[in-house]
């Protein structure tokens, strides 16, 4: 009874490789029209710039201590106040952007690459390849992800780099499965059977027909994943398993300040807002990208 969905003509499904304007250019054009997405992009750019020029922007050093200045409330001198070592919180947040973005980008890049390969193999070839890969995904996914990350970090030792590795590993199956299920439903399409029937090689089918169909969901999921990687990194930091002091990682800052929530709420407030804003930026931008890049979504 659900056949109605399936009545799109194969032609509209084809990536527009031979149309005059590239879909990416067109995507950018429509992205610009999407106000929310542009706000997201601006937030992301803002944080990227902050990360790049942290040394110029930060009013103070992120690690210089002045114990006498403990827990100064926000003021014109210290916009976000100071922490228990008398360090300027604004400066620490500015430097923290560097770490969070770094972990976000590289861990997701790692998971996408591995997940894409495994997902395509599993979905396209099916049978025992699918069997093995899906079992590996099942095994990895059956671990509660944060616990898996905690265990990986426990083995490797707590550090920002190891947190990044752990986050990359736990996100692989998410991408793998997503791609696999995409491939599975694309595979049922008539034009794939047609391509097979005319003797098109697997590699070509994958790159010309299957992969382009996976791109949009990867972008959507990828932005979500950068966002959640930043959160996961902060979570590990919060549990004391990520960045180590005096690194100004946002989650670690939260963990350090947690005990002071009653006396100095600003020490807990600002790192959390920083995490949320960065992640929000990626989410808004990702949404815009999806609307812009997925031709079927256009009005």
């Amino acid at each position, binding site marked *: 009874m659900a056949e109605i969905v399936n009545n799109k003509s194969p032609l509209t499904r084809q990536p527009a490789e031979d149309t005059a304007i590239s879909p990416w250019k067109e995507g950018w054009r429509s992205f610009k029209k999407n106000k929310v997405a542009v706000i997201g992009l601006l937030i992301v750019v803002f944080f990227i710039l902050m990360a790049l020029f942290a040394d110029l922007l930060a009013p103070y050093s992120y*690690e210089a*201590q002045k114990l*006498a200045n403990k827990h100064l409330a926000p003021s014109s001198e210290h916009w976000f106040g100071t922490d*228990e070592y008398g360090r300027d919180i604004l400066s620490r947040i500015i430097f923290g952007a560097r770490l969070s973005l770094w972990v976000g980008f590289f861990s997701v890049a790692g998971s996408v690459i591995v997940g894409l390969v495994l997902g395509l193999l599993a979905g396209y070839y099916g049978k025992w390849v699918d069997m093995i890969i899906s079992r590996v995904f099942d095994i990895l996914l059956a671990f509660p992800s944060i616990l898996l990350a905690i265990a990986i970090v426990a083995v490797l030792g707590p550090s920002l780099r190891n947190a990044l590795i752990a986050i990359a590993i736990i996100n692989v199956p998410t991408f793998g499965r997503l791609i696999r299920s995409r491939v599975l439903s694309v595979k049922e399409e008539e034009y794939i059977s047609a391509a097979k029937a005319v003797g098109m090689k697997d590699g070509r089918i994958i790159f010309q027909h299957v992969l382009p169909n996976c791109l949009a969901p990867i972008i959507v999921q990828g932005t979500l994943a950068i966002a959640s990687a930043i959160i996961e990194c902060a979570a590990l930091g919060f549990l004391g398993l990520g960045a180590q*002091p*005096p690194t100004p990682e946002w989650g670690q800052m939260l963990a350090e300040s947690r*005990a002071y929530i*009653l*006396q100095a709420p600003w020490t807990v407030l600002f790192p959390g807002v920083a995490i949320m804003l960065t992640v929000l930026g990626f989410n808004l931008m990702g949404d815009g990208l999806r609307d812009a890049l997925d031709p079927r979504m256009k009005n």
Partner: protein
Amino acid sequence: MKKTSWIVLICILALSTALAGCNSSKESSSGNGSGDVKTSGGTLIYGRGADSTQLDPAITTEGESFIVTEQIYETLVNYKKDNTEIEAGLAETWDVSDDGLTYTFHLRDGIKFHDGTDFNAEAVVKNFKRWAQSKDEAKFAYYASMFGGFEGDEGHVIKEVKAQDEHTVVFTLNRPQAPFLKNLAMSMFAIASPQALEKYGDDFTKNPVGTGPFVFKSWKPGDMIEVVKNEDYWQDGLPKLDGVKFKVIKDNSARLNSLIKGEIDLMDGLNPSDLGQVEGDSKLQLFERPSMNVGYLGFNVEKAPFDKKEVRQAISHLINKEELIKNFYEGTAEPAKNPMPPSVSGYNDEIVDYDYNVDKAKELLKTAGLENGFEMDLWAMPVARPYMPDGQKVAVAIQAALKEVNIKANIVTFDWGTYLEKVQAGEAPVFMLGWTGDNGDADNFIYTLLDKDNIGSNNYSRYSNDELHDILIQAQSNPNEKERVELYKKAQEIIHEDAPWVPIAHSKPQLAGIKEIKGFFPHPTGTQSFIDVTLGE
């Protein structure tokens, strides 16, 4: 649609079977049913950070278990309420022979264990035999470390424990042990019901039976242990409370929130930073545990460049103890200059501490040929300990202080168990650690922590000094208290000069409770009985 609901049904069935498989839980409890009877005392709810592991004090080595066993069990002799001097316990009086080799204890009459059996000399003998003859280092670790091993071992202190009559026990020692009585007062050497030991076997750890003021009622693992008033307690009118519930609330701040909201009555492990919060609340009061600990920065004296005395002294000059205490102990500690706290007999107050002086430090480093600084690993404790509420933060502050003389410190940490193991194995060049005294004797600090005999064990600095060793061994078996004090004072001078540690602070751990609590004195050893605590109206 039919198909869908059929599948949903399968799923629900599968899940519920899976879950039913694990549902064989049971709450261990040996109720005596007196919990619901409302008398005057009321039940105190004590909030703490972790559950007990088991309730046999002889096996236990961690504080959370002793906090509970202290209510259920009693020892032959007790510490006084607020220090570690000895007073009568299950033994009313005792005689010591002149050579310090024979101790005769006269036990109180008419005491019964919670299971109704009599407490007598035979019970004491059976308990000591259980420990001495077990030769089980893993099980009775404390016995072995306080009394020099087990029966037949060369260093074993106790030669024989004999019941002279129903109420007299005689201990014969192989060699004099100055802190013998103090050792006997430790929570782990409490007397358990021999009959219950036999009855429960391995399950005794969950079914404690002693002579104490409270009787074990129930234990919900990870959550709450409940003890109730021992109606037949040998001291009339005690205990005053109807019972005590030990509630686990892991996070220190969360525990304080529960206290503020009136969900619990008393809590330990107050964050120093929350002190103001408690002081500003008219419904709450603070309790301060007298200090019997030391938190320190240790050097592995076998590792370069910390094998050089000058480097160790230089770093000693770089640590601003007052400021550390102000910021990370919120003033609830005294700066330390010796490896033992002032409350312990033998403390040398004449020692002049290394002052905070960057220039002197630079000079000393120059003497050592390290005026350009160096890079080192600084190990920081991952967990809060009574002697140092936040080792990580102290480490970060020290890291910044060392930077002033171009020493680049990388903070290293592991989980607590690994940390101890690795520090013990000598892997850490510089590390944060501390110690809480077991029995209030100087031997338990200086010999345990800094004698060459204990390298590989608790002498994490791997500090070895023959002169010190001779002094400490002399002090160990010298029953004359005055001479011992002089020996320990001399020992502290040697240690001060060699600076294997930078002693940082003697902390005074804080507890908070509701105003109505009366008669509660936190004991320096870290555990105390709630015997005459009241929730007064």
